[in-house]
């Protein structure tokens, strides 16, 4: 239904730059996540796609047509707001039919369409209720109803689950994804919740300080982070960073750290200076035979797994291990890192150093 292309998009508010220069492409029918901490520019980006903010520079193409300076009403999009923004002076039916009324659709047809949407969302029973007394979930469904009723080219959602309580959010995220799979319309979804992004998205853009840090599938972003920010923002607990200094040639497959040799995917570029050895907690095993040692300082029991915090010569490390494995506080243990999953970062700029693991996903040179 719609393909959205963003090119060199920039937005300034006075002297503050909200979005630096974003470029990415959203394929037709994709569930696309804009992820980042608050103030990173993700909502501004979404609002520019919607036409609620005009870009300072750059282009937005919806289905090949440049819409950057067009008013929102001319873009054939639907927006779901975090606070739902249901018109409080109208009942559910009027709320859902409001976008159709603006197109001058005949009454009988509006009734039919509203009934159809209400059935998809399972809200037939509340159609004639005022929106004031509805529960969070029902409000969310009404907001979705108002969005899907006019068959827009794409859906834009600004943290639509942010106002729901945790238990219900889980349920609604499944419902949303199922709805997307049924309708198949392109969806752009803003969230600051990395789990939500990983769980629901086909593709993710990670933003920070108005800059796109990485753009890719959830798996790529998790396994092959392009920057230390992404490695830290995604995953809980986040990727471990072991700082060291050294000089590596292209093709190197090991690093020296505290007199121990640690493996990694072969480098595609040479690097000299301060580096960071990045490894996810689940890619660390505790083994007595390993040469690289650390002292257990804390353990957190999480059911099937446990998080063990260790103090090493290169900083604190968290390992996720099976909960039946014994780790006592104060004990010295060996750490075994899975070399194939390791990413090296330039400690200065935070960018990942090219290796056999991530060469395919790194866009920067």
């Amino acid at each position: 239904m719609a393909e959205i292309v963003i090119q060199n998009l920039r937005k300034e508010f006075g002297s503050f730059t909200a979005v630096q220069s974003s470029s990415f492409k959203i394929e037709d029918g994709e569930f696309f996540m804009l992820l980042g901490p608050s103030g990173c520019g993700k909502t501004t980006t979404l609002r520019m796609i919607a036409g609620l903010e005009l870009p300072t520079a750059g282009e937005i193409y919806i289905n090949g047509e440049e819409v950057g300076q067009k008013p929102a009403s001319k873009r054939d999009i639907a927006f779901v707001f975090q606070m739902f923004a249901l018109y409080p002076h109208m009942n559910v039916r009027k709320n859902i039919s409001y976008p159709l009324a603006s197109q001058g659709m005949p009454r009988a047809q509006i009734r039919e369409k509203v009934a159809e949407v209400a059935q998809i969302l399972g809200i037939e029973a509340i159609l004639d209720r005022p929106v004031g007394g509805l529960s969070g979930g029902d409000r969310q469904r009404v907001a979705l109803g108002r969005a899907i009723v006019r068959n827009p080219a794409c859906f834009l959602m600004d943290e639509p689950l942010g106002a729901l309580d945790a238990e219900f959010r889980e349920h609604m995220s499944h419902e949303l994804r199922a709805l997307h799979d049924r309708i198949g319309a392109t969806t752009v979804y803003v969230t600051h919740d990395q789990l939500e992004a990983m769980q629901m998205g086909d593709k993710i853009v990670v933003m920070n300080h108005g800059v796109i840090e990485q753009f890719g599938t959830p798996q790529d972003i998790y396994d092959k982070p392009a920057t230390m920010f992404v490695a830290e923002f995604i995953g809980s607990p986040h990727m471990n960073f072991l700082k060291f200094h050294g000089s590596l040639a292209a093709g190197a497959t090991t690093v020296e750290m505290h007199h121990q040799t640690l493996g990694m995917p072969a480098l595609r570029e040479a690097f000299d200076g301060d580096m960071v050895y990045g490894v996810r907690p689940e890619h660390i095993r505790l083994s007595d035979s390993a040469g690289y040692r650390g002292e257990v300082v804390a353990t957190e029991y999480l059911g099937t797994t446990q998080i063990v915090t260790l103090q090493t010569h290169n900083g604190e490390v968290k390992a996720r291990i099976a909960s039946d494995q014994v780790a006592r506080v104060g004990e010295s243990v060996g750490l075994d890192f899975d070399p194939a999953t390791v990413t090296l970062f330039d400690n200065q700029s935070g960018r990942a150093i090219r290796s056999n693991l991530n060469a395919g996903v790194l866009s920067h040179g």
Partner: protein
Amino acid sequence: MSSYSVTEPSSRQKWIAGCLVIAYALITIMPLLWIISTGFKTQNDAIAYPPEVFFEPTLEGYVNLFTTRTRQTEEFLQANPPATWYDEIVHERGMAIVGPSRFGERFLNSVIIGFGSTFLAVVLGTLAAYAFSRYRIPLKDDLLFFILSTRMMPPIAVAIPIFLMFRSLGLSDTHAGMILLYTGVNLSLSVWLLKGFIDEIPREYEEAALIDGYTRFQAFYKVVLPQAATGIASTAIFCLIFAWNEYAFAVLLTSGNAQTAPPFIPTIIGVTGQDWPAVAAGATIFLVPVMVFTILLRKHLLSGITFGAVRK
């Protein structure tokens, strides 16, 4: 757990609070009751000492308010028997009605000027407040402060320049002039009050309407206005009360044509001696429109006072 608790007040506390409220209500309502009762007294009852609490009510004050009369000889009165109940009241005092007074006209002027200026102040105020609330306007804070600064002195302090301006513009003693003046004085209040109300309305409502295919003005008209109804109603009450009660400018700038009721009512005194009942009747009638307007919008006014105190 919590360091404070909310408990139901004891019956003793409730009783004391109730007494205080009743006492306050009596103090506030006494002058009002006095004015209303004086309107139904005879001139003698009105100035009787000690004051008459129980008296035989008469509509003499109201008749005097609305008519002009002359003293007549016995022969004339006998030759012209009273035709109506109000003729009869006047006859008993040895007088005859020669025509209507100007009160009706003055009252109508008050209605036109009061409601006209309120309407303008609220419409302009709503538009300005919406713009201040939603758009990036250069020097917004300075403009808002400038608008507020017109409230920092009593309006009457600029009476002389306004008097001169009105004279050279030909606005003296015109309805348009008075509407313009009261609108101008009320506008700063209206912009500030309404800006507060509109700020509280989430932008998302309009944005949703914009995306649903409505223009900015339609979104304002169909979505923002219904939400701002409370604020508009309470602002309208404040504007109307000011314009309705305004005395000093009305005395200074109006005389024959556009004079409002406040400067007119005191002049009734001089017509046939100290006619307190007629003055009181005028004041009572003068109170009615504002009371009706306030009662009609009371629900909005109450929610207007607590608006913004609780996050919805």
